[in-house]
């Protein structure tokens, strides 16, 4: 049996020093940060990662904060459940509250953290199968590309075809969130949209810019501003509790009968939360009609290259976009948790 240590740092500096490449302790180890543990524990149990130490972040209480004012500040250790229940957040950052309510189950949301949700690893069953040496685990091949790829990417895929599993990520990108990360060289901030990396952009075995010795610290989310509304729709194979087959984070600013501006991000269809700039540009100034919604939906999936078994995702994503636009036009009642 391998040795195992659980470090419990009391400060951020202590935590960062314990991660790979940090200043201490003296003996070499492969340490991983542990927050809510709702993804990492499954990875440990399936031997996808085999660190000899975990760095328990729960002593860093300053990262638990959820500050709701003119803008949002969300600490990395804020629980996902905290986002779904905060009334001001529900009213003004609806897309985020609805996305949070759609995450997994109450048991997971009560433990899972916002930072962990954004940094969770892919759900692709080849990746999750210990016996499959896929490209996300350092192998040479993406078995999904020509295999059972029902749940894989239709946009932005290759050489890996994972989809990003987070519900909060599309919502937060839709809200133009900024993320602050800390590493050995100190904290830095960047747009959350730039935090996530396509397989061709960063390390193929990671889904974001974080290095092994860096931690996600917090998110800053500006107000959408006057006249904006937002929503999150999520299609799942199992209605009660599942990852997204496809999801849609949408914010629109309405002026009379027209859409003045829109922000649109798809989830569950690409290795990153998939922003749709062509659809956003198209929607600006258009009449708020079913014809506009259908045209925007088609633009949202522009460039999609479905694999053998996931062509349905193109239609599903387009349907979600139209449904979200209809909802924000006030033509469909809203309810928590997104599409069932």
């Amino acid at each position, binding site marked *: 049996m391998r*040795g*195992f*240590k*659980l*470090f*419990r*740092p*009391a400060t951020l500096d*202590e*935590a960062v020093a*314990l991660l790979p490449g940090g200043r*201490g*302790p003296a003996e070499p180890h492969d340490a991983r940060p542990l927050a809510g*543990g*709702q993804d990492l*524990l*499954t990875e*440990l*149990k399936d031997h996808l990662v085999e660190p000899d130490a975990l*760095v328990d972040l*729960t*002593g860093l*209480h300053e990262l638990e904060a959820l500050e709701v004012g003119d803008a949002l500040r969300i600490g990395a250790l804020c629980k996902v459940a905290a986002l779904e229940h905060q009334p001001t957040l529900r009213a003004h950052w609806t897309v985020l509250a609805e996305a949070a309510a759609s995450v*997994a*189950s*109450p*048991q*997971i949301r*009560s*433990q899972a953290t916002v930072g962990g949700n954004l940094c969770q690893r892919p759900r692709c069953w080849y990746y999750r199968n210990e016996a499959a040496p896929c490209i996300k685990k350092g192998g040479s091949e993406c078995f999904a590309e020509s295999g059972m790829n029902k749940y894989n990417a239709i946009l932005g895929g290759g050489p890996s075809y994972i989809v990003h599993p987070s519900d909060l990520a599309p919502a937060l990108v839709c809200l133009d969130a900024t993320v602050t990360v800390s590493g050995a060289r100190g904290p830095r901030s960047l747009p959350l949209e730039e935090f996530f990396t396509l397989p061709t952009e960063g390390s193929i075995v990671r889904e974001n810019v974080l290095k092994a010795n860096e931690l996600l610290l917090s998110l800053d989310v500006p107000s959408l501003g006057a006249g904006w509304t937002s929503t999150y729709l999520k299609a799942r194979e199992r209605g*009660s*509790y599942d990852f997204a087959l496809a999801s849609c984070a949408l914010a629109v600013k309405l002026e009379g009968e027209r859409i003045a501006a829109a922000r649109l991000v798809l989830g569950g269809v690409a290795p990153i939360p998939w922003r749709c700039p062509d659809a956003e540009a198209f929607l600006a100034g258009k009449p708020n009609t079913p014809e506009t919604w259908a045209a925007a939906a088609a633009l949202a999936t522009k460039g999609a290259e479905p694999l053998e078994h996931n062509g349905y995702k193109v239609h599903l994503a387009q349907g979600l976009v139209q449904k979200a636009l209809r909802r924000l036009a006030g033509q469909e009642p809203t309810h928590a*948790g997104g599409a069932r």
Partner: protein
Amino acid sequence: MKRPPRPQARTSEASPTLSRRTFLKGAGGVAASGVLAREALANAEPSGPPRADAEVLEGPVEVEFALNGVATKVTVEPRTTLLNALRVHLETPHTGAKEVCDRGTCGACTVLLDDEPIYACMTLAVRAHGRSVRTVEGLASGDELTAVQREMVASDGMMCGFCTPGFVMSMTACLEKNPDATEQELREACRGNLCRCGTYPHVFEAGMRVARGGAR
């Protein structure tokens, strides 16, 4: 419910004693209790220079928590899940929480940590330190079942019964917070519980009898 004071962590070799700083931080963090903080102050070792390194748990560690209201100690490795601690490592094993998927998807291991439903299979036992853990064993007083338990029996809310403790704990947590829960709210509360026998209609019938009756 009074929670036990935070115990010292033991390591197999070169056991570092918890520093005053770590001790106080931990005690304050896990329990927002002035009483506990004062106890911690009284019990803390004399103050010294702050430690340079983080606390580390390795090898057997003693975890203390309130299990169904009773101060309980269990010695586990820091990688042991709360579910295994309850079912295997306790001197009196508590097997009400079931191990089924062991991956946080089925809900059979649902227990309440500080009254919040969690998957015990997805939580390290050390996370329960200084906190309250409630399992299905702690619901009944002697032979007197809680309303949720009684109505589960009366509604025939189970077949094989493996998922039942999880559903009972999820519904208990929901109805404690909101005694007037609607069926939709009960269903939301049980989204993370899976019954492969398909007894959902009877389960929610039981929950709604409690919600309407309001007697728990």
